[in-house]
């Protein structure tokens, strides 16, 4: 089954290549702020995602679940007031960037790292960072390695098209050590390379590796080194040149963050409707002035919280304490509690 889905994915990637060619077919007229129009016409948002349990993966009923998935649902609420009007498609790290360029997706919710090259040379805009990560190394325990520099001479699996492919080369050049990369596109094959002993270590975003470790045949034979080789701020990515769509993505994410800061949750949001705080009134659309100004449903924030909860709830439900990943909030804690998660004011 795995293999079949792989074949299907390769077929879709072939289609992806064709789509690059099909940029040619897009009429030039469809230019200013076209994404929202196209989405409304289509009736559904198209989001590219990866496959890591906790971040994005279909559950036993085939329904997508995960931290990034919830932001996709939140977007669908903002646009359609219906969390189901978003279609998730798996796309490998290698294929997803050109696929977004080619218009195959309206948004990538795949753990794309914000980089200047992607902004300027790939022509992307990024929404707010929804997860602060860093590149890690998942290593076979019997190598007795505790630091990345100890991996001198090792064979390391890298996933093609990721920032990790570049970071690891930088790291070894910086430290004057040597390594042999095995560059693999497909996520399943990437994991298998470590399982079979083909490589001594894998490198990818740290949390990705934490999730991968649980998928190995013998997780206890491997450790995730505590060291992080890079900054990997993961954010929703869209094609450049559509300010309206960018702002929708921005404020959808901010709404979940602001809600957490206000202490508004999925369960208690209705009780806040009676709040006397003018800021909360504006935020939840009880005072409709804000929503009118920005051309969205004045109650979009309320609807989002009602559907997926606030940022903290999204985090805890998918990757936090008690989940398989069991992650600490760390940098992904609210700024008021020492983290980096911050929303500009809703006013």
């Amino acid at each position: 089954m795995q293999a079949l889905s792989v074949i299907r994915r390769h077929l879709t990637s072939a289609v992806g290549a064709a789509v690059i060619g099909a940029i040619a077919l897009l009429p030039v007229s469809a230019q200013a702020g076209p994404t929202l129009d196209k989405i409304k016409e289509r009736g559904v948002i198209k989001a590219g995602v990866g496959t890591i349990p906790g971040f994005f993966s279909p559950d036993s009923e085939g329904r997508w679940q995960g931290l990034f998935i919830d932001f996709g649902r939140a977007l669908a609420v903002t646009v359609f007031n219906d969390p189901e009007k978003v279609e998730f498609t798996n796309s490998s790290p290698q294929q997803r960037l050109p696929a977004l360029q080619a218009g195959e997706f309206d948004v990538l919710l795949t753990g794309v790292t914000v980089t200047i090259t992607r902004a300027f040379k790939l022509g992307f805009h990024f929404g707010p960072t929804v997860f602060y990560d860093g590149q890690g190394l998942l290593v076979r325990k019997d190598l007795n390695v505790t630091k990345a520099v100890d991996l001198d001479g090792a064979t390391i699996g890298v996933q093609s098209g990721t920032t990790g492919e570049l970071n690891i080369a930088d790291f070894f050049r910086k430290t004057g050590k040597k390594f042999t990369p095995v560059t693999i596109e497909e996520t399943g094959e990437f994991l298998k390379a470590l399982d079979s002993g083909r490589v001594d270590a894998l490198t990818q975003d740290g949390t990705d590796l934490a999730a991968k470790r649980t998928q190995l045949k013998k997780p206890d034979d491997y450790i995730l080194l505590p060291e992080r080789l890079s900054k990997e701020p993961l954010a929703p990515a869209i094609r450049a040149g559509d300010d309206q769509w960018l702002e929708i993505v921005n404020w959808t994410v901010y709404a979940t963050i602001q809600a957490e800061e206000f202490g508004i949750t999925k369960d208690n949001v209705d009780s806040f409707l009676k709040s006397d705080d003018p800021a909360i009134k504006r935020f939840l659309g009880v005072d409709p002035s804000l929503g009118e100004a920005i051309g969205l449903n004045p109650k979009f924030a309320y609807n989002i919280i009602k559907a997926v909860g606030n940022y903290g709830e999204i985090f805890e439900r998918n990757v936090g304490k008690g989940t398989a990943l069991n992650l600490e909030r760390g940098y992904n804690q609210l700024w008021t509690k020492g983290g980096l998660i911050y929303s500009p004011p809703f006013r």
Partner: protein
Amino acid sequence: MHAPVPPRGAFRPGFPKPGRLAAFRQWLGPSPFTQLAVLALVLAGLVYFGGNVLATMDRLGLKPGFAFLSQRANFEIGESLIAYSASDSYGRALLAGLLNTVTVAFFGCMLATILGTLLGIMRLSDNLVISTAVRTYVELFRNTPLLLQLFLWSALFHALPAPRRAISLFDSIFLTNRGVFLPRPVVVVMPSLTGLVAALLAVGLVPLIARRLFQVRAVLRWQVVSGALAIIAIIAWVSGLSLAAEWPVKGGFNLSGGLSLTPEFAGLLTGLTLNSAAAIAEIVRSGIQSVGKGQWEAARALGLKPRQIMRLIVLPQALRVITPLMTSSYLDLTKNSSLAVAIGFPDLVSVANTIGNTTGQSLEAIVLIAGVYLLLNLGVSLLMNRYNRRLLAKEARRA
């Protein structure tokens, strides 16, 4: 008197009007206006789409062009025939990928030809076990997706034991999950006994070579070959060079020395070879069957043995049918090698994809991939067509 009107069929091949435009007219065929209209439409379409591509890229802030090829690549490639490191350019990275593609395609074609020919002949064996076994092989490999087969071979090579517990064959070939290690032929600078023997042999062959030079026709091919080998050996001996092998040795955590094939390369090569061999076996079978029964009977009447009949009578004639089909098998194999990316072999496509991804010049990367495959395939076609023409010419001379 009327001016002479050109006959209606003037544009038809066979009736070209003389003159400088004859070739052009001939090429346009019997309905030149339709042809030109279609051509104009296609060109207009290309211009329209091209313009759209540029406009769209401009809107996304992408600058088309190949200037990026000279910039630093900043990523590593696992295996390369040329020296390559992350500080080299994107252009050099592409070259490394291209050489990997060419290597796997070249050896794939060679091995698939040998195996496929053997299988094709075995398929026609009177022995039911052999022919059924080959038939099963062919059906199996032709009716399952190649990508699946590649995953299987890749998994198999990955499932080999770690270097410390390598499977060794005669202590010279080692199979491990880090690669297959083989003895590597190396040139040693030292006069040797082999060189001497070869030289003596060569001296014995000189008359034969001389005869060849003096246009004596009846020199057999093996004599020419051994003559050439002998000359090489003499040169080697005189200059004190000789051939030896460097053996892989086990030691520590890995093997060192010798020639090592990575599991990705070995998996890809195996997959492509076995898959193409199935197609080639069918081609060879049909080629052999295309040679009339009468040929066999005549040859048998002359007292030739079956092996001789095959080698001297049937195969040479079958080649006429086989060669053009073989070309398309080679082209398939070359193109199929691009599935490498799925199992982690850094071929041209894999490298170009990474480049497209990190530079944002995906369109250029795709254009490069397409261009290079086109050139590779045209090259293969050219060689094969030339071979085919020679074959036909030889046939014609004989007839």
